């Protein structure tokens, strides 16, 4: 009897056991790679969603942002954010420029924090503290006439900032077929 159950167990193990083949000879899991620890995920995960998820602690002001901007950003973007030589950052909605800047084109304020923290300054990406990035974000939103000069920008206030260009964005509706869109 014991032998019978042992054999039955082995047969079932073969049929349904962990990592066993599907009909196509493809296992449910290969078991390659290692489980990521919470700590290593936290170290890499710098993404920020439009609802503010992912924004770090800290805060910034327009005043501090202006000082950091003049020191670390103005050489490429111009002292008021319009002169270049690199991308123009300042163009309040309604400005006559054709340039796509923060005020007249960017649909989400959180993107400003995310991109600045990831990629700026160009010659030293990833070097700014959370507070510095919040301050720069505040200054650029102010320069684009989106917030007033006293507004403090942090994880709670940034996702609340409504960007003027957001209302223009629509999802791609090209679908192939004979119609040109």
């Amino acid at each position: 009897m014991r032998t019978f159950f042992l054999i039955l167990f082995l047969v079932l193990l073969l049929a349904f056991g962990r990592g066993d083949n599907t009909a196509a000879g493809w296992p449910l899991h290969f078991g390659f790679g290692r489980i990521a620890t919470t700590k290593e995920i936290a170290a890499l995960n710098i993404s920020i969603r439009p609802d503010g998820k992912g924004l770090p602690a800290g805060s910034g002001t327009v005043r501090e942002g202006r000082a950091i901007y003049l020191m670390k950003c103005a050489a490429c973007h111009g002292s008021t954010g319009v002169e270049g030589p690199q991308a123009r950052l300042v163009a309040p909605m309604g400005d006559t420029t054709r340039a796509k800047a923060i005020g007249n084109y960017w649909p989400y304020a959180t993107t400003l924090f995310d991109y600045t923290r990831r990629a700026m300054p160009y010659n030293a990406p990833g070097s700014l503290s959370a507070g510095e990035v919040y301050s720069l974000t505040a200054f650029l939103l102010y320069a684009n006439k989106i917030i007033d000069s006293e507004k403090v920008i942090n994880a709670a206030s940034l996702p609340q900032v409504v960007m003027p260009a957001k209302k223009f964005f629509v999802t791609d509706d090209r679908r192939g077929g004979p119609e040109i869109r």
Partner: protein
Amino acid sequence: MNKKISRRKLLWGAATAASVALIRTVTGQSIHAAVPDPTKMPGPLPGPVGKRSPFEHPVRKPSDISSRSPLQDLYGMITPSDLHFERHHAGIPAIDPHQYELLIHGMVDRPTVFTLADLRRFPALSRICFIECSGNFRTGKETMTPQDICGLTSQSEWTGVLLSTLFREVGVHPKATWFLAEGSDAAVMTRSIPVSKGWDDAMIVYGQNGEAIRPEQGYPARLLLPGWEGNTSVKWIRRIELSDQPFMTREETSKYTEPIKDGKIRQFSFEIDARSIITFPAWPVQLEKGWIEIRGLAWSGRGKIKRVEVSVDTGKTWLPARLQEPVLDKAHVCFRYLWNWRGEETEILSRAIDETGYIQPTLGQLVKARGVDMGGYHLNPVTAWRIRRDGAVLFKPENWK
């Protein structure tokens, strides 16, 4: 004595030296000198890595942010890896393949880190497809080559693992609808991608045309989204985060979006619509009367090219071109059309039709659909080459602003 030895040495030396004789070109490159009669002198011995003939000089055309493939200098549908176009946002990162890791986390059952060796252990797949930058249309003057007009498209055989295999491995949550793909370049570039593309045909690739991916193309591993605008095929990929919403990164909001009619801005325009370009004859080619095989490339991000039509009478009549087999899904296909040019002034054009029934539009049709303020992304107009009586071939620039 001295003289005799040196004479013998000289003869032997001349024979061996001639076989590997180098001359310096105007650009400072050392190349093999041509020998007057190669049948009268042994050539160089086998070596570890091959080189192009010193008579061939296909080159990309670099700017600060990209470099363009020399479409007019290529044969067949594969772009040599070192001529694949480049577009990157903060230079090419140097990544040690032994240190490389890909993290997949977020809405998954088992957040997992894969090394390059792990990725290579999974069942592999190779597919030939194009990658095209969505900002791939330049116009404005007659003296432009196919490379100048639309050199930000290239095609390779890519090898790697299907993203769906990795999705199953980590147990992607059924409610996950988007994922973030993040590169490890100095821009830490990110794009949000619908999960459905991950289940459909997305890959993590480590091989390109039979060897490891080139650094410019994402070494040691990149995302590959067949048929979608090149920017979404995130290079040097280090992290994939499953989510239930897009992240609205810079590259999908302030860039890679295009103004259309009524002040609207189109976002998440992923698919590359069907397109073609005549790569021969093209400026600066000088034509002679007689038989000319018109040659070009056609492609669609929505499936297979069904037909390519060529007009040699300024668009009045269109006739089908021959397509070179195999015609692959979301891939460049070569087309050819035999034409007897009798010296008349005319314009030659091509248009691609894909399996969805989409017909490559004219610039006028695009302007009509999107308005005069349309943005510069996803422009795929029919392009014309003017043939002058003297045999000169000139690009026909069309402006819409």
